[in-house]
């Protein structure tokens, strides 16, 4: 992992010569961050140090030859999204003084080596252990065994109810929802939010075929509760699109991540097929819980798909939920919704969090089957069924 600095601060000063009486002030420029030995991905702050005998007018920052931002006042910082590709990148800073003098510096960062990438991929598993409906909450790290594609793995992190929780409550408020059902969903969501700890955060999103209302991720229960004000049912249902959006929004969060979806699942308005949601669920680390009201699954045709196609959609969504480590909670009556929301929060609180570095990870996108066992335990152990190795 090496980098090049094409102009050094000291060198720039050493070459700072005055040329005749018309010479302009010399400008010494140094990119202080990022440094050549630093792997660069995503949002990156470029910080530039300037030494000059006169006031600096502006500093322009270029990424791979393209102007990406400028700063006019110290500290000279520019924020840029460099993307997630593991490639070499060149940062260049050009500073101009008020008289028009300029100086420049550049830094070339290198891609991280494959071994470094592998080291970053800690897999987190959230595990529910129960027998006869009661959770077993007295287990220790040594009680668990993780198998990744059949290979035993070393558990490197262990905990329960310690990680902060980030939840998206994704609530279907399409036109098929009546006021009684809406009120029951409101109560359920409020019960969930009421049970959150101060370190937890949630985003509440009301959707139909469009996103009707949503909050930012916040721990402020007033902000979350306010999203229900003026909520009314409208439009059709687009589960896939907004479930994908929720999973994507959770990508950049840390800790235990969950989407709690409330919908009947009869999606006739999404542009994304459920296979995209399944792909996303497999590639990510978020759990999906799906609360269904009305019990029985229904077959239907739509403008986009026939019965078979829609059944396949449902199956893929069902698979996404199960493989993520979440589950489907089917409730018959609106009065049962509040209990379902509470059950999910309680289940999340009672899960064990296990972390391991997969020994067989190759980043080839292939499916890894995961199994968690508890030594000498005959009850139910539930976690995500696996992941796609991206």
């Amino acid at each position, binding site marked *: 992992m090496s980098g090049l600095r094409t102009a050094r601060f000291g060198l720039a000063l050493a070459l700072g010569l005055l040329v005749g009486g018309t010479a302009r002030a010399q400008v010494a420029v140094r990119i202080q961050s990022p440094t050549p030995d630093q792997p660069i*991905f*995503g*949002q990156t702050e470029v910080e530039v140090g300037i030494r000059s005998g006169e006031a600096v007018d502006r500093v322009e920052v270029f990424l791979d030859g393209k102007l990406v931002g400028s700063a006019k006042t110290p500290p000279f910082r520019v924020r840029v*999204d*460099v*993307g*997630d*590709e593991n490639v070499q990148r060149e940062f260049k800073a050009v500073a101009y003084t008020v008289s028009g003098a300029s100086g420049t510096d550049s830094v070339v960062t290198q891609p991280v080596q494959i071994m470094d990438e592998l080291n970053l991929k800690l897999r987190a598993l959230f595990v529910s252990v129960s027998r006869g409906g009661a959770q077993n909450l007295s287990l220790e790290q040594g009680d668990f065994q993780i198998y990744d594609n059949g290979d035993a793995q070393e558990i490197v992190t262990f905990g329960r109810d310690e990680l902060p929780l980030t939840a998206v409550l994704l609530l279907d408020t399409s036109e098929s929802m009546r006021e009684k059902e809406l009120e029951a969903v409101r109560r359920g969501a409020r019960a969930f939010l009421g049970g959150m700890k101060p370190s937890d955060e949630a*985003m509440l999103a009301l959707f139909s*075929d*469009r*996103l*009707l*209302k*949503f909050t*930012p991720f916040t721990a402020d229960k007033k902000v979350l509760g306010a999203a229900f004000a003026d909520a009314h049912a*409208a*439009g*059709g249902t*687009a589960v896939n*699109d907004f479930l*994908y*959006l929720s999973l*994507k*929004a959770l*990508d*950049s969060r840390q800790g235990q991540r969950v989407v709690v979806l409330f919908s009947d699942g009869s999606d*006739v*308005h*999404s*542009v*994304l097929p459920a296979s*995209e949601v399944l*792909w*996303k669920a497999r*590639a990510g680390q978020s759990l999906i819980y799906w609360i269904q009201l009305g019990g029985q699954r229904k077959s239907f*045709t*739509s*403008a*986009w*798909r*026939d*019965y078979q196609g829609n059944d396949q959609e449902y199956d893929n969504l069902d698979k996404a939920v199960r493989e993520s480590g979440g589950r489907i909670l089917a409730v018959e009556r609106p009065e049962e919704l509040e209990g379902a929301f509470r059950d999910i929060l309680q289940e999340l609180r009672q899960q064990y969090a296990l972390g391991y570095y997969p020994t067989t990870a190759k980043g080839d996108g292939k499916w890894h089957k995961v199994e968690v066992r508890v030594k000498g335990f005959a009850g139910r152990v539930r976690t995500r069924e696996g992941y796609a190795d991206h």
Partner: protein
Amino acid sequence: MRARTDAKCQGGLLLCLVAAAWLGTGPIVWAQATAVPPASGDGTGSLGLKEGAKISSERVEEIYRKILLDWSAGETERAPEELIQLETAAIVDGEPKTRKALLGAEQRVIHQVGAADLEVLVPIAVLHHEAYRRLLERRTRGEAMAMVHTRSMARDLVILYHEQSGSEGAGLVASRLLTSLGGLLLQSAQQLPAGEMFQQAAELDGKNVAALLGLASIYEKNAQPETAVKQLRRALEADPASAEAKLRLALNLKRLDQTAEAGKLLEELTAAVDSSWVTPLAFQELARLHSDKGRQAEAEKVLRKGIERHPDDMRLVIQLAAVLDRRGSAGEATALVEKLLASQPKAEASARYLYNTVRPEAFAPARSFLAENSRSRLPVLAQALNAPAEASGMGLGR
């Protein structure tokens, strides 16, 4: 456009036949009145009629005649309301004979005025159409049979008008009225009778694009894309510029795995200058087509162009994020989603919803056409109603 009764009309016999069909089990009648319990309200309305109260046929004829007179005088608000009052008072759900009695009385009035001039059937049909539209909007319990009755009146009167007149103009009027009824039925999720209306409308006027689109939308919702394609090709033949017909054809061809033609149509739509909901949906579907074939780079290109054209279309952004995720640019995908979630969305109906929903405006041209044709015939109706009863008889026995 107008056809007099003298040459062709053998109105008496035909009206009798139609009346028989109204009352019988012939193909014209849709037995779809659901068993809704009668309303318990005892409001009498401006006509002083109490629901379910027995009204003599003479009284019904008298009131119906008065309503037609109001309608011919341009009372566009009062006449349909009074017709609703009359029909909902006279017909009791679950008692078919009440409908038969009402029909008989209305039919006698129509015979009298229709004998003078066949053209009067148009405004009378449009009046019943308007009453049906209002009843549908209210969805009052206990009025199901009255709704079916007034809808059947509207439909059978224009069919009779077309059959008696035989003119191309009569076919156009009938076709538009059936199209509008089909649209109203679709709005109330009655796909089968709506399909029959559109089918008949398209038979009467093969260039009726609204009817062909309505028919195709029913086929595609019922997993019959092959039949939908046939209707859509007819619609495009009638109106090659119809963006909606092109989009629906592309999507149905896609379902039939005829992706080359589907792609070509979608490309045409995305290249066209059009500000309707059709274009963002065409971008979405073209990108989806590429993604389905594993051509994520092409999908990305289409979506970026789509977002440039339709920056407020949230679906295009979500779709682009998914494509970028697939392509390994997870950071850019996250940034897109974060940007999307940084602003409150516009809670407008999405293009996909509009595609999948009955849009009343799709049937607005048919309704304007009907309104215009009805208005122009109101003086004829007024004249027929004011003529002495002896002169207007059509020789039909009561």
